[in-house]
């Protein structure tokens, strides 16, 4: 069964602004805020223990879509189902879905505010109305998953390094034990080690809790490593929702919207064109190395 299902969701920022704009039509471009990207008829679904990678340029509507998933933005048309329940059905119950569908914003460390790491992570569980024992258990678990050591629990989150702050902020969402984890460019601005640790934390959480993950990233290489399916967006429209193979096979389509296959795939495609290997449907370094080694050894055995 689908854990989360997005059905024909459309949203435009302009209709609210339109009314205002009509009144002050004479304003120049200079005086309008950048129109945030709208989304148009997006449909996809995600199952337990599945990772959906979302790609698209800035302005493709990724961030807008992410905020409709947990009800922060109400779509103009279409809706989001969580375990078959329409999350927008009852306005008063909507906030409860935010605990089930955890949303990690871009640069989430900017939301930290408490005196200690531990207190900050317990903000979410506290809002859920859990008892203290339960809160403590969840917070400790969440901090463990993101690899924050016990001696940092009582430190101020502002004393941590950039990568640690990011992971504490992630733990703040994980402590609510969401069944769907939605992340908007979680690795932006981190160094290679920080990126790796963060992605590992996300995958560990998914495996331990059988959760679904929806992750926005600019890095094809990262997405290729962890995703089961890809959702490709362009200017608010859904270009594709399909397996890695089917998305990357259509390279022209990706290039036409300014995206491309992972670097390693480019190498494999070039090698296949030269007739040196016979399979270029690989998207990670590991797979590519296996294929080249096999070709290599295969030909030596002849």
């Amino acid at each position, binding site marked *: 069964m689908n854990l989360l299902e997005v059905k024909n969701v459309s949203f435009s920022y302009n209709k609210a602004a339109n009314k205002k704009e009509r009144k002050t039509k004479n304003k120049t471009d200079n005086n309008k805020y950048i129109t945030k990207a709208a989304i148009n008829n997006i449909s996809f679904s995600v199952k337990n223990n599945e990772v959906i990678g979302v790609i698209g340029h800035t302005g493709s509507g990724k961030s807008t879509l992410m905020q409709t998933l947990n009800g922060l933005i109400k779509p103009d048309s279409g809706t989001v189902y969580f375990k078959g329940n329409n999350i927008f059905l009852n306005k008063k119950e909507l906030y409860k879905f935010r605990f089930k569908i955890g*949303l990690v914003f871009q640069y989430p460390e*900017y939301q930290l505010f408490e005196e200690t790491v531990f207190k900050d992570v317990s903000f979410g569980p506290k809002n859920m109305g859990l008892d203290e024992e339960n809160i403590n258990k969840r917070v400790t678990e969440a901090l463990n998953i993101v690899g924050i050591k016990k001696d940092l629990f009582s430190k101020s989150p502002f004393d941590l390094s950039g990568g640690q702050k990011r992971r504490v902020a992630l733990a703040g969402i994980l402590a609510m034990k969401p069944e769907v984890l939605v992340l908007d460019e979680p690795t932006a601005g981190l160094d290679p080690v920080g990126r790796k640790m963060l992605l590992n934390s996300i995958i560990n959480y998914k495996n331990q809790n059988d959760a679904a993950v929806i992750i926005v990233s600019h890095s094809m290489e990262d997405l290729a490593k962890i995703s089961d399916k890809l959702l490709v967006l362009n200017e608010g429209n859904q270009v594709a929702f399909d397996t890695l193979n089917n998305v990357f096979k259509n390279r022209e389509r990706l290039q036409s919207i300014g995206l491309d296959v992972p670097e390693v795939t480019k190498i494999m495609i070039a090698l296949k064109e030269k007739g040196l290997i016979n399979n270029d449907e690989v998207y990670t370094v590991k797979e590519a190395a296996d294929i080249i080694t096999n070709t290599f050894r295969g030909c030596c055995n002849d």
Partner: protein
Amino acid sequence: MIKDVSFGQYISKNSLIHKLDPRLKLFLLIAYIIFIFLASNAYSLLFITAATFFILFLSKISLKTYFKNIRMIIPIIIFTSLLNALYSGGGTLLFSYGFIKIYTSGIYRACFMTVRIISLILISSVLSYTTTPTDLTDAIESLLSPLKYLGLKNAVHTMAMMMTIALRFIPALIEETDKIMSSQKARGASMESGGLIKRIKALLPILIPLLISSIRRSYELAEAMESRCYNGAEGRVRMKEMHFINKDYFSFAFSIVVFSVTIILNILF
């Protein structure tokens, strides 16, 4: 939503008023305000109000836009009118109910005050609708420049720089507040419910990150400014030069005529 707040009221048009030197506009605005107050009888007030409408017309911005600003102060107008109507005795009694007595002079005073307030609002709106915030900052800096001779050169410059930076960062801070609010909502924070203390407490998760990010921003901005050889007012020469052109002289002359006629009407009647 916060994002809908548009900052600054500037409306871009190609009009005489838009093209005037911002320093002159600011100076004339102050003069108009003074003379609207000085207009002491119906003739002079109506004259300067007519002049105000003529200026509105020249700005090519619709009256409707201007009157939007008046809508907001209707309660103030009603309040002052009532006070004036109730407390001025004189002329014939028009209406009486218990201790409430309204005389013709009361009605006259109420109308007079209303016209005066409306003129004030309209003439002030002309400046804010036709001048960009940056131009306005520059105008304030140059109008305060006489203070430089009092040894306050750095103070004037610092004030103007602070205003420039504030204008630059308001949109960024609005956006940031919105983002932090959304992030905390995603953690289940509710900002709409509860008593006063609970609501104030609910603001902390927004205010603290906002404060911290503002401090971080200011450090980064200071470094960027220093890296670009910023050294206060010392040796700094603005690229944008302000020159008086014919339009400015003409507008200045026009205003002098308006002010003189207002005073003459004051004396004659």
